[in-house]
Structure formats: C-alpha cells, structure tokens
C-alpha cells in the first residue's frame, strides 16, 4: 500500500466541486470543531470561508504560538547545481532554457558554506536540478560528506530518489527531504512535465512513501501554486499529509506554498493567487494541523513576510540566492527564479525580534542523526 491507493479513491473534479459548494454553515462548523477533519479543511479553503478570514487568522495565531512559542526557525538554500534534464514549463532550470549550466565543485561548495556560516546559519537546504549523470548519488554522497561537518541540520530538495538512496543519504547525515508534487492534477502534470524522468507522475506521488520507509527524520510537502486550482491542489496536499502522519508516525512534516515567480523562459501562471488567498491557505493548514511546520521562502515580498510571520508560519529562509555559487560570487545570473525579499539574514532577524520572536538559527544537533 502507498499513497497511490488512497489517491485513486479521489477524483479531482469531485473534490473541486465539493470545495466550491461549501457554505457558511460548513465553515462555522469547521471553526468550532475540536478536531478539524479533511472535510472541515475543505470548508476553510473554500470561497465560503473568505468572510471568516479574521477569525481564522486569530485562531491560527493562537495555535501556532502555543505549539511553537515565540520562535521562528531560519534556514537558507544552497544551490549546488542548475543542470537539469527535465522540461518543466514554469522553471528557469528547464532543459530548453539556454542558460549557462553550473555544478559546484568542492572548492566552490566550501566557499558557499563559509559565506552562509558567516550569516549565522546552522540549517541549510541543498538544492539542485534533476541531472542524474552529473548530479546523482555519487555527487550527493560526496557533497554531504563535505558539507556535514559545517551544519547541524541538512535538508535536501532534489529529484525523487529510490528508498535505498534515501537510506544511504540519511546515514551520511541528511536530516530532511523536501519534495513537492508540483500538482496533484494527473493529466495536467503531464502537460507541465512533457519530458524527462519527472514526467512519471506515480513515481513522484509515491516519493514521500519511500522517504518515510527509509526513516528520514523530516519531509516537506507542497504544490507549486499557479499551476492548477490551488484549493483543490491544497486539499490533496492535506490528504497526503494525513495519510503520511498516520503511516510514518515518527516523521516530522513541513508544508511550503511556493507561488510561481517569474523566471527565464517560464510560462505565466495559469492561476493567480492573491495575498489574501495565501493567508487563507496558511491559516487553513494551521487549523487542520496545529503541529505541522509551515515554511515561507524569499519568493514572497518583504511586506507580506513581515505580516504573515504572525499568522502561522514557523520557518523562514532569508538572504537566499537561487543560483549556484551565488553567495560567494554576487553576480545574479543562472538563477532558478527571481526572489522578492532580498534583505540580509541579520535584517530579517531584527524584524523578527521587533515583532517579539526569537530567531532560531539552530534547533537540531548532529548527535541525533546516527
């Protein structure tokens, strides 16, 4: 059994219709529930919940502070490579984009590490495109050995891998794996990923199961907002989360909600999500799961980030560069997408402190990665 079996019992059109038919009464029931069910979550996501956004925000804030306290985790991505053999219609790394390709060597990696450490970070997220030959398991094994001594916590956002690969990487000190489904709309997934290994919808859908079986401590889920109807896609994300939490009960979970950003050669988003709608989604996730970590990247604007840290977010990236070598080498090129919040990590930490948060640079120790 895997999530595929659960997924196949649902139909995109039916789920979508159910969400859009929710009424004010459904929303009020969800807001009063002691345990928010998937059906309640659908109501909180629905257009019917819009007039209740203030109430959702207050509840979300209270639940988040109770669970996570007045703290905010900080992490930073480290782009190791922009080589990619996939065609993704929305991504700057897409194979059909003629940009200069770069994979960091040992010296370049260590120069990036030095800059990131100076910023104060102890949590790092390794990112690559999907290029099995150049940036496969051999590269990852080597990179982890090189990077591990410098960080308390290492996450990875790379192509889906086999269970055994995850086991090996965990043994080398990998703590968390982020893998987004992009969209749960099976037919349109194929349109967005016409070629390359990534076009295999099922392999991607079952990746969290492989991560769970391999015993990786934490995994990140999400969809790319802009590809399809975000409400329906987010319902499937919650369905996936619920399934995983029950099956891999020792794993920690986080959710991200990347909104599509402009990039080289990319399509304009099919669906636009407003700031107000993203707030609704963040609060709906928090009410559905008081314990799940909610992460917000520098894709979002400073104005938006400064406000939503109060509403449910528990982790922020700051100072990000999305091009390989971008920290040690300031020229902005080869990037995966444009970032919106270019403020330095220290500036973000000041903002958090002014709002009554303790910025947490370290919340893990390699002692637990054995």
């Amino acid at each position, binding site marked *: 059994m895997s999530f595929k079996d659960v997924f196949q019992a649902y139909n995109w059109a039916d789920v979508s219709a159910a969400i859009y038919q929710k009424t004010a009464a459904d929303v009020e029931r969800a807001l009063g529930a002691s345990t928010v069910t998937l059906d309640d979550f659908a109501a909180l996501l629905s257009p019917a919940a819009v007039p209740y956004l203030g109430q959702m925000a207050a509840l979300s804030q209270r639940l988040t*502070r*109770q*669970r*996570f*306290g*007045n*703290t905010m985790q900080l992490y930073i991505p480290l782009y190791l490579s922009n080589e990619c053999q996939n065609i993704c219609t929305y991504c700057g790394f897409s194979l059909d984009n003629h940009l200069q390709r770069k994979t960091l060597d040992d010296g370049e990696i260590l120069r990036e590490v030095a800059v990131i450490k100076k910023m104060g970070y*102890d949590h790092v997220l390794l990112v690559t495109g999907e290029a099995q030959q150049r940036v496969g398991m051999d590269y990852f094994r080597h990179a982890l050995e090189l990077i591990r001594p410098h960080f*308390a916590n290492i996450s990875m956002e790379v192509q889906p891998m086999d269970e055994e690969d995850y086991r090996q990487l965990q043994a080398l000190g990998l703590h968390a794996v982020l893998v987004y489904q992009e969209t749960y709309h099976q037919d349109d997934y194929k349109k967005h990923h016409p070629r390359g290994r990534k076009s295999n919808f099922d392999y991607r859908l079952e990746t969290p199961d492989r991560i769970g079986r391999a015993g990786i401590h934490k995994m990140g889920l999400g969809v790319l907002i802009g590809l399809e109807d975000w409400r329906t896609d987010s319902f499937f994300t919650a369905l996936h989360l619920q399934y995983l*939490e029950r099956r891999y*009960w*020792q*794993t*920690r979970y986080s959710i991200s909600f990347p909104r599509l950003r402009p990039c080289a050669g990319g399509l304009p988003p099919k669906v636009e999500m407003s700031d107000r709608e993203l707030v609704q989604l963040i609060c709906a996730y928090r009410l559905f799961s008081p*314990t799940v970590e909610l992460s917000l990247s520098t894709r979002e604007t400073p104005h938006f980030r400064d406000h939503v840290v109060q509403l449910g977010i528990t982790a922020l990236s700051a100072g990000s560069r999305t091009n390989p070598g971008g920290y040690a080498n300031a020229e902005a090129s080869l990037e995966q997408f444009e970032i919106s919040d270019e403020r330095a990590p220290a500036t973000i930490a000041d903002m958090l*402190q002014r709002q*009554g*948060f*303790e910025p*947490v640079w*370290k*919340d*893990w*120790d390699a*002692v*637990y990665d*054995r």
Partner: protein
Amino acid sequence: MTSLIIAGKTFHSRLFTGTGKFSSPAVMEAALRASGTELVTVALKRVDLQHQSDPLLQHLHQDNWDLLPNTSGARTAAEAVFAAQLAREALGTNWIKLEIHPDPKYLLPDPIETLKAAEELVKQGFVVLPYIHADPVLCKRLEEVGAAAVMPLGSPIGSNKGLRTIDFLSIIIEQSQVPVVVDAGIGSPSDAAKAMELGADAVLVNTAIAVAREPVRMAQAFAQAVTAGREAFEAGLGSSSHQAVGSSPLLAFLDL
C-alpha cells in the same frame, strides 16, 4: 515549606522551568529569575555546544540555577544515551532529563526506549530524570533501575491542558519512593497548585510561562502557586464530601 532533595542535592524551590518558546534569551532569563527556580532544563539540540558564545547558554550560565540538559530530539535509547554523554562533556553536569519521543506530533514519550536508556545511563553514572507518561508501573520499573526521580506528564507537552492524568498521578505519588515531578501540560498556576496539593514533589513548567503575555509576571504567579500548593499539602488538606456527615442513625441502637 520543606526542601526537596534529589540525588543528594537540596532544592528550596519546587518549581523547575524550561527554556523553550521565549521571545528572546533576555526575556527567558528575566522570567527564570522571577520564578525563583533552581533547576532549568535546556534542549541540547537548541544550543551550540562547540561555542560557549551561544546566546542561550550565555543567559543560562548563572549561579542562581543548575542546568538540566534534556535529550529532546532523541527517538531511541541509543540516541538519548549518546546525547547525554555529549551533554555531560560539554556542560559539565551528570544530570540528565531523559526525553525520548519518537512521535513528533504529540511528543509522547516512548516507555520501552526510556526504560532501556535509563538503565544504561544510571550504569554510566548519570542522575537520570525520565520524562514519561503517567504510568504507575513504568514509574516503579524506573525506580528499580535507579532513576533519581520520575517525571510523569499532566497532559501532552505544550498543550496547557492541565492535569488530565490526575488519577494516575495520584497512584504514582502514593507509590513512589523517588521524587515525583509533574512535567508537561501544566497550563496555569492553579494546575501547578493542584499538582502540589496532590503531593507532587515539584512541577516543571515551560510553555505556560514562555507564551504568556507577560512571562515575568506569570513566572512569579507560578512560584506563588507552587508554594501555596506545597504548603497546603504539608498542612494536610481536610477531606471533602458531597454529603453532610452527621452522627449515624445506623448506630443509634448502641445508645439504647
């Protein structure tokens, strides 16, 4: 109020505190001072043990209190033992709050791994304070392997739900030969006072202080509640009854 002795060490305050969830290390330090606590637990995973410049540690190295490193983050006995060894070396204390919660959602402790780890750590010379479910049998088993105290939960960590396990806490307190510290779930000073009235030897409070609107005042409130509850316990609470108890007509025949 009598003093509390754990593993030969005397405590005048029966309020133990945690260090998580505060808005800043400075607020944390002020609240800990206000609480009058003498034992402060700190998560190993939060601190940078290689650098004593860690802001959290800088605020915690005080004469007012002892540090009780905890193994939060450990999912197995092996991980917890390794973390305890690291803590002993880095922080120079053989006291350890043993926390093994493989369940990241409710952070409920694993009884089997905890017992295994406690036995091993005692052998290695640690003063072991295990965080556990309010399970009276497990408490006796931990006592047998040499735990210096037991720390049963009132309700899930951070829930502020109070003493949901009160019936089992009563049994544990009644049976225990080692100090009983009620840990987790205490959400208000009245919860703390109630635990102390029951006869708990101490309580450990974190979330309720850290996320209060005014953490320093809340810490003071907890200090007062713990003292009041303990005084009440030592003074001997009168028994309560739903019905008035008069002289029994059942025995009237004896007077005839």
